[in-house]
């Protein structure tokens, strides 16, 4: 997918929409993962109570992040870990490079880390003559292709078997059949050598446990275990919000994360790494570094609209639930993080008005992301906040501004509205066929290019309302006794949402 050069979400999406394979692949994958999540949640039972607990733990942790981060750093240090703090991506890269150079490292093997993608670690290592190898099968493939991940869980979602076979054949120097077992077998053999000869293993961090200074990695392939077991030096890149207070809290995260990501009860491997190897252990790293990264995260703290963004556990459920992501794929978002979480995270981390203008509009605000989110982050609300801030910053489109002004002018006066509707009905005549408009003209084009636009009704609902109201009144009177009970029931329904708002849906 050659979307790198397109400047806007709209342009990138247009390219993606014309890629038949991509659309099918993304649809198939997101449906498989989404179906898996729903089935796993159903099987686990009481899913809402788990979500609620997940949200509570994450909110509690973020609200006390200074305390828990301190506790984590102190305890990790007691285990013999070198703990580093980086305010920016560039600082984190610099720290990692310094370690690599001091070890005279030639090869770094890496397991999946979104932070590493975020700060472009591979490029920095390679620029300094250090071979940097992604070892997750999907990440290895997109590294060979020189691309960004297009899905947080399945990074090479956009590549088909034939393309993958070509990439791997070139890497192998021999022709490999486009067969999954052959291709995966090649990567296993090739990377096995690399694991054994690498000087440094670099990992991400799914969770960091404050009470013991441990990091926790979730994965299915075993490459994160390799990276944290075989090389002599381990570097772990960690977003500063990855903290949870205790191991018992990990049970909740372990219940939510794999089920939300792929529908598994647990990933094949969940590893808790606490410091470098003990002196009499035979394997595990001799030296362990943890680099804790801010890079715009702290900007969300104390912001009532965006603090919950730091609750995210990076499961990708919102991508799989999103009707927009399903059509345009991950690369259209133009950043490391894609889908609804990416649409909020990218502008929020960068505090960049121009980018708010862009990705925050790539959403239908349907709220499917919120319903899928295992820690109940209101992403659809955040997208609205971003749009509002964009407007407040004066970055709104002037055409939109004039449209809104016109809308206000018309809607504020019923005579004006009636006159406009009348004129519209008259004006649309040449365009209407069978009650719908198909012509691709003017501002209608965006809609009518793909579907028909309903014609203005005659008479309109507003014009019919007086007679509808009379009919309803007559019906109620005819019904007499029955009518009273209907009224009472209606009254009860009307009160219901109020009760729910006051705490009925809390568990």
């Amino acid at each position, binding site marked *: 997918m050659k979307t790198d050069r397109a400047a806007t979400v709209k342009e990138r999406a247009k390219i993606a929409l014309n890629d038949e394979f991509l659309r099918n692949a993304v649809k198939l994958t997101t449906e498989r993962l989404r179906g898996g999540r729903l089935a796993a949640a159903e099987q686990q039972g*009481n899913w809402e*109570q*788990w979500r609620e*607990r997940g949200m509570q733990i994450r909110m509690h942790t973020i*609200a*006390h*992040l*200074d*305390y828990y*981060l301190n506790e984590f750093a102190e305890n990790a240090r007691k*285990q013999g870990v070198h703990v580093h*703090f*980086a*305010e920016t991506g560039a600082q984190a890269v610099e720290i990692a490079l310094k370690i690599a150079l001091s070890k005279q490292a030639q090869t770094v093997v890496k397991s999946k880390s979104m932070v590493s993608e975020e700060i472009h670690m591979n490029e920095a290592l390679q620029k300094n003559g250090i071979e940097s190898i992604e*070892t997750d*099968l999907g990440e290895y*493939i997109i590294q060979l292709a020189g691309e960004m991940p297009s899905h947080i869980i*399945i990074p*090479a979602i956009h590549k088909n078997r034939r393309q*993958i076979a070509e990439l791997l054949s070139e890497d192998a120097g021999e022709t490999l059949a486009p067969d*999954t077992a052959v291709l*995966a077998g090649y*990567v*296993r053999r090739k990377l*096995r050598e690399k*694991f*054994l000869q690498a000087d440094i293993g670099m990992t991400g961090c799914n969770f960091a446990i404050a009470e*013991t200074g*441990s990091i926790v990695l979730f994965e299915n*392939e*075993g*490459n994160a*275990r390799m990276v944290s077991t*075989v090389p002599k030096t381990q570097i772990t890149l960690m977003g*500063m919000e990855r903290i949870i207070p*205790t*191991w*018992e809290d*990990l*049970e*909740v995260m*372990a219940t939510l994360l794999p089920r939300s990501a*792929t529908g*598994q009860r*647990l*990933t*094949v*491997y969940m*590893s808790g790494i*606490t410091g470098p*190897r*003990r002196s*009499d*252990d*035979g394997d595990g790293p001799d030296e362990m570094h943890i680099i*804790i990264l801010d890079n715009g995260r*702290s*900007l969300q703290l*104390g912001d009532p609209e965006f603090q919950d963004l730091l609750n995210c556990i990076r499961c990708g459920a919102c991508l799989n639930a999103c009707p927009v992501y399903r059509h345009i794929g991950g690369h259209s978002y133009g950043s490391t993080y894609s889908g609804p979480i990416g649409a909020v995270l990218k502008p929020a981390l960068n505090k960049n008005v121009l980018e708010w203008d862009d990705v925050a509009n790539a959403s239908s605000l349907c709220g499917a992301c919120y319903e899928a989110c295992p820690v109940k982050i209101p992403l659809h609300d955040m997208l609205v906040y971003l749009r509002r801030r964009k407007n407040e910053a004066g970055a709104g489109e002037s055409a939109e501004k004039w449209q809104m002004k016109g809308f206000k002018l018309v809607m504020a006066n019923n005579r004006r509205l009636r006159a406009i509707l009348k004129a519209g009905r008259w004006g649309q005549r040449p365009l209407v066929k069978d009650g719908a408009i198909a012509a691709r003209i003017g501002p209608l084009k965006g809609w009518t290019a793909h579907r028909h636009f309903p014609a203005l009704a005659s008479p309109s609902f507003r014009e019919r309302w007086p007679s509808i109201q009379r009919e309803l009144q007559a019906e109620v009177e005819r019904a007499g006794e029955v009518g009273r009970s209907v009224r009472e029931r209606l009254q009860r329904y009307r009160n219901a949402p109020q009760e729910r708002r006051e705490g009925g849906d809390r*568990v």
Partner: protein
Amino acid sequence: MNQQSFIANITKRLGRPMPEQPPEHPYRGAPPFWREQTLARGADRDQIIAQFIEYWQDAGGDAHHFASLSEVRSYIVQTAAELKAKRLIRHRHPLLDQMSLEELEAELPGADMTVWDGERPQEMKNRAADADIGLIVADYAVGATGTIVTMSSTGQGRSVSLLPTAVMAIVPTSRMRASLGEVMSDISAFGIERIPAGIHFISGPSRSADIENDLTIGVHGPGIVHALLYDG
């Protein structure tokens, strides 16, 4: 940037002084209903074991329940013969020590068994990488997720459950727990003094679906995993 100013920035953004006491954490761990369920389920050991076996097999592993250690031994030897295993490596663990697995020559001609020794790191890693079968004893197993847990120590290298082509884990049923939370409580109780460096929760064979959603087994870790339950 140093820790102090990094944390101070967070405190400032949160708009209150840094807490001096540990914050009250009323939401620690699983929701209350789950703890009750776990307690209730804990009473029915057979059901937990059945659940473990079902989920382990579901993930693509083999699981068998044996009445005695000698049956476990026969199964290991038989499977090693079927896999034509030549090089085996095992944890140094009392259960495995007493199975006299070093005298395999008669049963598996040409087979060689290495016992993990933390004092010889490089040699051990190489041997594990070359091994056909790794033998471990699980420190815990969990019914609710179909998981075994192995913890690193001088006799228990992490490589043994990771580098060989196949892994066989002996699971004493006394180590079986209903839910993950029970294992987490124990780890929490180790505290920073006694916690092992590597704690690994394993729930089946290594897998990936990264190529066109097509499931592949044994991508980096072992593709063959046997759980050998034994009532001891």
